[in-house]
């Protein structure tokens, strides 16, 4: 199939960027979206042009490295990561707009690559548990009810790709942060840091310049892992509980 691509090209973090049009031919509908971009890049390199920079790693939808806004939708028209989006979801002759994640907390490094280290700093401020080192504890020493384990796992599925931030009209990281907070706060292992975790992670999220939640629901629609919108409600509940309790921050 033959496609017209309009791609955001930006040489460096402080350079101005522009949407640039490319024509690609010979695209198979079995190609993934990233393979289609590989195809374009091979042609660009052969023609002496600079290839389009984009993030990718596992290419099987589990690492969270890839991500671009395709026709105004984070990760494109299917509810999956960009690497698992296949060209059969487009038709011959389509024009496809490809843009980087847009948020002030995710500055563009080059072309479609953005700096998502703000997520690392949010996780670093509380997305962990304290456990004694040494031999592994007996697995059944701490019982976890099935429903709680399922809830924790549903939230643990977050791969930190940033689609929620990209889709949110406010560039808010509430869905990401809530997935991390809920994942650990519902488990007994996360109990000792239950208050400090939510307080510190929300503090860091605010400090990184993410916007607030206006409950548009765009994030949960874009999330390739299906993190539910009510995880945000659960995080808000945890925040209020910790605040009323006068919970300590570890990072203050």
């Amino acid at each position, binding site marked *: 199939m033959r496609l017209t691509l309009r791609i955001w090209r930006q040489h460096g973090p402080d350079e101005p960027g522009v*949407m640039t049009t490319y024509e690609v031919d010979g695209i198979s509908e079995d190609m993934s979206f990233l393979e289609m971009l590989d195809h374009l890049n091979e042609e660009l390199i052969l023609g002496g042009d600079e290839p389009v920079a984009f993030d990718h790693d596992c290419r099987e939808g589990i690492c969270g490295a890839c991500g671009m806004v395709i026709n105004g939708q984070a990760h494109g028209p299917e509810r999956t990561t960009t690497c698992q989006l296949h060209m059969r979801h487009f038709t011959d002759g389509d024009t496809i707009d490809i843009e980087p994640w847009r948020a002030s907390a995710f500055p563009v490094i080059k072309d479609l690559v953005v700096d998502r280290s703000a997520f690392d700093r949010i996780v670093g401020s509380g997305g962990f548990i304290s456990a004694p080192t040494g031999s592994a504890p007996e697995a059944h020493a701490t019982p976890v009810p099935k429903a709680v384990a399922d809830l924790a796992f549903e939230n643990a599925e977050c791969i930190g790709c940033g689609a929620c931030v990209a889709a949110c009209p*406010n560039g*808010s990281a509430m869905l990401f942060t809530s997935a991390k907070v809920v994942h650990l706060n519902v488990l007994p292992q996360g109990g000792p840091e239950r208050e400090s975790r939510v307080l510190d992670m929300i503090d860091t999220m605010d400090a990184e310049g993410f*916007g*607030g939640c206006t*409950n548009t629901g765009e994030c949960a629609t874009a999330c390739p892992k299906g993190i539910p919108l*009510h995880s945000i*409600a659960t995080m808000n509940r945890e925040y209020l509980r910790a605040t009323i309790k006068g919970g300590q921050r570890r990072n203050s």
Partner: protein
Amino acid sequence: MALATRTERSPSLIGSVWRSTVGKKTIMAVSGALMLGYLIAHLAGNLKVFFGADDFNGYAHWLRTIGAPILHHGWFLWLVRPVLLAAVVLHGITAYQLSRRDRAARPHKYVHQRQRQSYATRTMRWGGVILTLFIVWHILDLTTLTVNERAEEGHPYENLVASFNTWYGNTIYITAMVAVGLHVRHGLWSAAQTLGMNSARSDRALKATANGLALVMTCGFISIPVSVMLGLVD
């Protein structure tokens, strides 16, 4: 070396709430809920207009006698007013600050725009501005009677009919009541989400409550100017 045994003091409750985005939204949710509660009572009172001038004026008089004899005439209303004013002001300030922050967090618009959010969600900010202006107009119209030309102090029923006999009175009121419905539709569910009351189980029930209440409020309030226009209330 002696170990410190005193527990650390947490930062003040109000300070930490005010500094965080989630805390500010809590303030928005609580102040919004307060105003919504008032509005429901206000609607219930207003609908007395359909039982005639005596009922309506009697109700207006009763409002001033609530809490008697411990509260003096009209004191109850004066106790409620500062609370409502504080709710409006806090709701407005937090909305303004959060909106500024939201805009700064997304400085670049996407070239490929898609309209996805519902109309109620998109119009929360402008709807809020319309409602603020309406509150000012409404107080000048029916409380202080400044802009209501044929109004007389102490005759709320007649003043209401006078206001709804003007085209601008009706236009302003009906526009604002549509804005109220849209604001409540997104706002009630959002407040539940912000206060952590939403869950997978209650999501649909909450959305249905928000939509139902929004519809009841808009239709309920609008029924009054429409009835005046149709001559059912005069």
